[in-house]
């Protein structure tokens, strides 16, 4: 695979947050899902975001993905504040700068693998002539080139997650955001997926932020760990 999007020439970190908060109103009460988080992730880093369920790690990931907007604070991706982006700019950010992988794969069940992987290319308005090649290339990278015309239901869980990895790659983003990517998989298949993610990090230079509740995985793959509790970062872990 050729270079990923290289708006990363600057000395800016890939992602930086400054006192980010995300509050929800739940009746009269306010839930502080993310409560004053400041962190910095360098280009090409592989970090893990750990915490129990409800700790706010997924909310933080959604904020980093541009799927959600912070209540206050700044989120800078390559130095640009997501909080100040328009809806369209945020959509473009999701389209070109980040790729997402989910615990439940989120492939569209009625589309073939080829169509699923092509979807981000359609949304990014990539020329029709270039699409087939890029879909092929992305699926080849995860070892699914032979299964273009299969539907998600015809694949195993591991294969589905590999397809969703291909989908996250196809627009050549610089940042990969993975939300419990192995949560629905057995440990052997999970390891296979983790190896692919590690490969992307090492070979393609993608910055990886992985949400997980398994310290074992974080220790094995991530260079750095962030632990969240009640919406706050509790500790900045180092590699292994």
């Amino acid at each position, binding site marked *: 695979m050729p270079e990923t999007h290289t708006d990363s020439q600057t000395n800016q970190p890939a992602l930086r947050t400054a006192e980010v908060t995300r509050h929800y109103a739940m009746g009269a009460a306010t839930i502080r899902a993310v409560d004053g988080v400041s962190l910095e992730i360098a280009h090409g880093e592989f970090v893990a975001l750990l915490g129990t369920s409800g700790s706010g790690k997924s909310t933080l990931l*959604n904020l980093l*993905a541009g*799927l*959600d907007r912070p209540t206050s604070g700044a989120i800078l991706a390559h130095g640009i504040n997501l909080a100040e982006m328009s*809806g*369209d700019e945020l*959509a*473009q950010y*999701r*389209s*070109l700068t980040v790729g*997402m992988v*989910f615990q*439940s794969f*989120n492939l*569209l069940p*009625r*589309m073939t693998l080829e169509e699923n992987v092509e*979807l*981000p290319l*359609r*949304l*990014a*308005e990539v020329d*029709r002539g270039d699409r087939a090649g890029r879909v092929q290339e992305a699926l080849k990278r995860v070892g699914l080139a032979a299964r273009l015309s299969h539907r998600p239901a015809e694949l195993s869980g591991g294969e589905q997650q590999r397809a969703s990895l291909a*989908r996250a790659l196809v*627009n050549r983003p610089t940042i990969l955001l993975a939300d419990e990517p192995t949560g629905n998989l057995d440990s052997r298949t999970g390891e296979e997926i983790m190896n692919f993610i590690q490969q992307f990090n090492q070979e393609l230079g993608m910055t990886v932020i992985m949400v997980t509740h398994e310290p074992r995985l974080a220790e094995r793959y991530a260079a750095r760990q962030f632990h969240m509790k009640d919406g706050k970062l509790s500790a900045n872990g180092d590699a292994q």
Partner: protein
Amino acid sequence: MKTRDLMELAGRNLREAMLRNALTTIGIAVGVASLVAMLSLGIGLQKLVMGRLQSSGLFDRVYVTPRPVGASLSGRGGGRGGRGRNQQDDVPTPGLPPQLQPPMKPLTSTVRKQLAAMPNIVSVFPELRFTADLRYGGTGHVTSASSVPFEARGTGQFDNITGSFFSGANANEAILHTDLAQQLADQGNFKPDDLIGQEVTIRYPERKPVEAPPNQRPQDIVANGEFGQGFTIQSADVKVKVVGIVSGESAGPGGFGGARIMLPLELVERLNAVQGFDVREVVANPGETIYPTLTMLVDNPNHVQAVEDAVKQLGFGAFSLFDAARNLQLVFRVFDSFLLVFGSLALAVASLGIVNTLVMAILERRHEIGVLKALGAADRDVRQLFFTEAGVMGLVGGILGVFLGWGIGQLINFALNKWLVSQSLTPQKIWLVPLWLVASAIAFSILVSLAAGLYPASRAAKLDPVKALRYE
């Protein structure tokens, strides 16, 4: 997203909920069909009525009389400049019916030429009538004869003719009224249609100029013209071939025929048959043929008003039924808007179906919308996707609806004609689906569908992707 991608995704989404979308689309189709059915009924009826009236010769004709219309009623005299120049007309002529009483300007052959030279005039023709004795099979029938201009061929009045119209403007041919044909047939014990192709003799009163006395001075000839000394009436015969038999009555002023024997105008003019007006001619305008009325055939009903005004300017009476036609058109316009409102009602109901279907689709595809947004879809993309789906349903529904409406129309037409025939009436085409109606029905269907898609599309676009992704 690019249009082609939008269309592909929309088409895929529509196919996936095939039954529901098909039902919704059929709902739209029924709405459009009712709209098309209603409007084409209105248009068809209008066309039928207007066509009938037009072929009856009421709308492309200006009927000219010697007296300005209303002059005799209001007692204001002969209108513009009528009096001074026609001094001799101011003395009532005894023995003439009141409508021929002065003041008025006689419709002379010069006037006829003058009128014919006006713009937009196809032709100007008089209606000549005389009493004739039709002789066939040894017996005679005293009846009325009238002239029919050759231009009458193109109008609807002779549509139901048995046999054919005159072969030429000057042919020795006659068309008989069915009543006369029936009378002849009853006497001779044959069928009326057998008369076609037969030669009959028409005996008529011919006017012959009186030879100028041998001692007439040349200046008298100049002053009095060719017929200056009047004429004598003699019995004359002409043999004509019966070419057609026609039923029905003359359609009022400006209509053709109306007598029992109809002869080509040029033939009648050649015959020099005596007319009621001729008596006046001897006294008033020596040297010119005078017509009781003239009918002006105008090339286009739209020009009728102008021609009418111009004729009135000349000091003649003129009238047409153009104003009546205009009022009729107004009535039809009101009628059509009524039909439009009722037709649109069904489409409005159908558009609620679109809203319902798309709102359901949002619930069903909530997760999918979340995924699309996570993969980089902007709100605009989602909105356009739903909009396209609504538009496609509108397009397909519109096309289906036009066909359906057309089919309903054909069915009603068929049933109606069956009934008309059973009532011994002529079948009619009361159904008309013009191309502009097809195009605007489809366009309207798309428009209504897009309007119905507005709310669901914006609701789908505003969906929070985080919540949507959590929704399975």
